[in-house]
């Protein structure tokens, strides 16, 4: 096992463990912090795939901005174990069964797909570098890129409409 493989397994275990802790933590603040840890390990995976730009943007956008706002809101609302609503046991069971089925389907699909025979381009792929990404974004994908500005504009207008005092 070389260094890359060790890193890969370490990051994968961390990501999965973090994701599990997000769901199972009783305290919402802990959940968010675990989610941040998960994002970091995913960023680590990006770096292993030589997609440094994606890794950094993942950290800036998710860990640095969105999760901070999450933390902000949860901390202000002062949610803790006592305010956690009691859920119906049957509902929990149903949720567990449904989620488990989805997991089963995904695993089965993944097992039967041809992806298992392909290997990841570790350290050699260069599509995640900022230069190539930028070129793709502004040539092939320029139309969706520009259109997404409408999406953001509408979200901004919406935020103002909802947020401003009457």
């Amino acid at each position, binding site marked *: 096992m070389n260094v890359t493989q060790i890193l890969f397994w370490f990051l994968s275990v961390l990501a999965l463990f973090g994701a599990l802790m997000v769901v199972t933590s009783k*305290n919402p*603040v*802990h959940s968010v*912090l675990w989610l*941040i840890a998960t994002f970091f390990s995913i960023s680590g995976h990006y770096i292993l795939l030589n997609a*440094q*730009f994606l890794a*950094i*943007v993942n*950290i*800036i956008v998710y*860990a*640095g*901005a969105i*999760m*901070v*706002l999450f*933390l*902000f809101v949860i*901390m*202000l609302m002062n949610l803790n174990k006592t305010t956690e609503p009691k859920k119906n046991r049957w509902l929990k069971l149903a949720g567990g069964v449904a989620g488990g089925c989805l997991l089963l389907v995904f695993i089965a699909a993944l097992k039967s797909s041809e992806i298992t025979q392909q290997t990841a381009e570790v350290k050699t792929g260069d599509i995640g*570098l*900022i230069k190539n990404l930028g070129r793709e974004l502004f040539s092939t994908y320029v139309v969706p890129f520009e259109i997404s500005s409408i999406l953001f504009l509408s979200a901004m207008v919406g935020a103002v409409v909802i947020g401003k005092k009457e």
Partner: protein
Amino acid sequence: MWSFSHIANEMHEGLSATFNPTMTLIIEMVIAGVAVIGLFAGLGLVLVIMERKVSAWMQIRLGPNRVGPKGMLQSLADTLKLIVKEGLTPNGADKFLFNLAPFIAMIVAMLLMAPIAFARDFQLWDLNIGVLYVSAVSSIMVISILMAGWASNNKYSLMGAMRSGAQIVSYELSAGLSILAIVVLTGSLSLSDIIHSQADGWWIFKGHIPVLIAFVTFIIAVTAETNRAPFDLAEAESELTAGFHTEYSGMKFALFFLAEYVNVFIVCAIGATLFLGGWMPFHIGNWQGFNHVMDYIPSSLWFFGKTFFLIFVIMWFRWTFPRLRIDQLLNLEWKYLLPISMFNLLLVTLMAIMGWHF
């Protein structure tokens, strides 16, 4: 010419001669880590005494003058006091997060050291997106502050953390936009490329007024990002006792304190790198003679000189401006700085496309 790069090269050659490449890399990493920690401690000591002396000078008083010559060892004595002091953990606190927070603050500050070029050819990690790396990692800082504030289970701490969160998240935008101005001019995100692009003059001189505006917004934004006066609402002592670190004592408090000063150093180093050429000596266009004379001053001196000048400016702010209210603070960012820096970025882009800079 005396330079860091020689030392680094000789060390590398010496190690390579005796060990295999993997061992060399590991040993070099250990050395770099120790050096960073050493730099940390050194910086903490220097910056604290500098702050106290500068404030004393601004207020026409003497400042610390008992320990050591002219009180220069005062911060060493303070450190000793903090080390022997008991680190209390409040009963109602979330123990794990409470103890974790100062370390995260510290780790973030240390990570930020990685891409900074201290001297010619002296950089821990020259990654191709250095500038983005800096803004990404520095945005993690706020998580440690929120963690500390929430885990303390104290309303002042929580208030301080909330203020700090709002402040850092908003000021990150204009800091990022003013950094982008330089990125647009250079066409690269790598810090070493940015420094090399200033071989014929620093951006602040080459880039006309738009870069000056970017520089000013950058300085304002980073002052806010490091929670320093006049933007120190996160720890406004007259309102919130000490903000997010109210409950911290002993070494844990010291770590926050140290991280704050190191952050000041780092943002000033970034500012110096982007706008004032980093280790690049003061060059004017292609005046070969003049440039050669300037090259005789070691590059590390240039770097530290510029950085400490900026640190001095930020300290100057602290003792000059009164603290803002939280609504004023957010107004300043969202209604003035952000639109200005956005418009400025447009101007810079136009300038870069038309080639109007020198």
